[in-house]
């Protein structure tokens, strides 16, 4: 079955010097390749600075890679022109880590949920409002909160709102960039369950970026580990967790979960 998303040797450099045209560059992505099957979840794990967010931005067509290709539903979106890319963006949505920054604090929940539809410009105000209310229902935000301003909502509610907004344009792929990391444990559990429900209801594919192996274990079918701009290990979730082959994976695992390493048997949680 053709993967929904296939990233092929993606490279991204940032100019690091102060003046334009400076020689120093920051290598954020150094030849990243991965693929995600439709309606599955790939967890991308790595420490901060490993390039995960840059990868997310590139896949979502919000940054231009320096080289490499991003095949989405068979089309190389990285090679597209800005105007054409804009048409693709609704199909790949991003949910950010800190909802306080990813939602305009002065807007109401209803406005935020319906914003994607405004951009589409082909719906009436009433239609947009109805759709927005439906979305709020999907993410279990009570309708009475629809007219509250974003800064008045709790952390969990804000993140649900961000998810609702991401769903508005019926995307195929949702990238969650550390979307649960800023929340309390109990809220994390609620929302990860919500995500699973939404995945089966809407047939979504997730790219779940995190530094937390426990989260990944709960949600992911496949796991890829990233370090300094490269994928160092990938495979089915079970395998990676049980018998990590790369040093980086091992140290990350050791840091997040209580494990014992039994030589010959591998790691056990």
């Amino acid at each position, binding site marked *: 079955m053709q993967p929904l998303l296939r990233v092929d040797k993606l490279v991204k450099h940032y100019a690091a010097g102060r003046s334009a045209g400076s020689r120093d560059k920051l290598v954020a992505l150094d030849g990243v390749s991965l693929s995600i099957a439709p309606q599955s979840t790939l967890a991308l794990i790595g420490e901060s600075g490993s390039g995960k967010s840059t990868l997310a931005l590139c896949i979502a067509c919000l940054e231009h890679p320096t080289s490499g290709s991003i095949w989405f539903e068979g089309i190389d979106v990285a090679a597209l022109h800005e105007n054409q890319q804009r048409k693709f963006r609704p199909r790949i949505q991003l949910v950010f880590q800190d909802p306080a920054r*990813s939602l305009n604090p002065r807007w109401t929940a209803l406005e935020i949920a319906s914003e994607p539809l405004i951009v589409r410009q082909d719906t009436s105000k009433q239609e947009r409002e109805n759709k927005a209310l439906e979305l709020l229902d999907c993410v279990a935000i009570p309708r009475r909160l629809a007219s509250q301003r974003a800064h008045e909502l709790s952390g969990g509610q804000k993140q649900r709102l961000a998810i609702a907004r991401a769903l508005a344009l019926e995307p195929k792929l949702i990238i969650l960039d550390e979307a649960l990391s800023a929340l309390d444990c109990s809220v994390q559990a609620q929302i990860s369950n919500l995500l699973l429900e939404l995945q089966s209801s809407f047939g979504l594919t997730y790219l779940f970026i995190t530094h937390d192996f426990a989260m990944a274990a709960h949600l992911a079918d496949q796991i890829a580990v990233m370090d300094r701009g490269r994928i160092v290990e990938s495979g089915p979730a079970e395998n990676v967790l049980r018998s990590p082959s790369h040093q980086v994976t091992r140290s990350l695992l050791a840091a997040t979960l209580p494990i014992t390493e039994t030589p010959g048997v591998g790691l056990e949680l």
Partner: protein
Amino acid sequence: MKQRRKLMIWLVILAALHGIIAAAGFFAPYDPVEQDRERPYLPPMHIHIVDAHGHFHLRPFFYPLRLREGSFDQYEEDTTTIVPLRFFERGAAYRLLGFVPSRLHFFGAAGARVYLLGSDAYGRDELSRILHGGQISLLAGLLGAGVTLFLGALIGMAAGYYGGWRDELLMRIAELFLALPWLYLLFALRAFLPLAVSPLEAFLLVVVVIGMVGWARPARLVRGVVLSVKEHDFVRAARGFGASDFYLLRRHILPETASVLLTQAAILVPQFVLAEMTLSFLGLGVPEPMSSWGNLLATLQQYNVLVSYWWMYLPAFAIVPFFLGYLSLASALQERAGAYKIEEKGNWNPS
């Protein structure tokens, strides 16, 4: 909050001051161009409630002035005639706010002209001229500030949002504009345009010239705001569902610049009113018979006026309450925005 209250107080004061000037036709007793050649350079008249015989009058009144015996320019009160002051009096026709015709004046007198602030060389009432002149000066300042802020916001947003070489270029030009000796260039700009134009054209010219001069600083400030807001995730998210640049600028970025623009407005308006006054004072602004605070002061350049007719200086005070109001408003706005900055002086050096 105390800051909000301060802000409100100054807003109300400024609104009241502007209201008085806007309703100049009502508050002024006479038409500003109405001459009375028999009574040039009359000093301000006193309002009394007790007359020369010690009687108390309920209604305030004044004595008309007459020339002292054997003198050409010394006046004394003619205590034989009592002219009472009347309120809500019918007088010269005018148009309130430019289109509502009316003849109602706040006060006036029957039988003689009351010159509360004296008269000028043609016997025109200074008070009326000051009030009407304020309309010109204030309007020039407000419109000029509008032009500047519009230009500044546009350029600042373009530079901040698009970045790259456009940003570099625009900011270099802005630096150039910030570095120029503004007073000189303002005059040069104004004077090198045709000198003899109709009053309306002159006014518009003044507004445009003033407006084009000061855009650099607001542009820099707006650019700063745009640079920081641009990186916010909610802007990224909006781009993520296919929003156009225009949408992002209009719905997310522009509202964030509002506070900067408002503060700049409060600082710029008085500076621009002063610029108009300076231009008109030097003969490069609004011409006679239109009055503006500037050209009312221009008569002081004549030595005899300077020596003998001190009340011709009074228009200078008209701007002071406005300066106070605007600068205090700007200070309150800045405090509210969290950054306490030193107010810039209202002299014409917008640096």
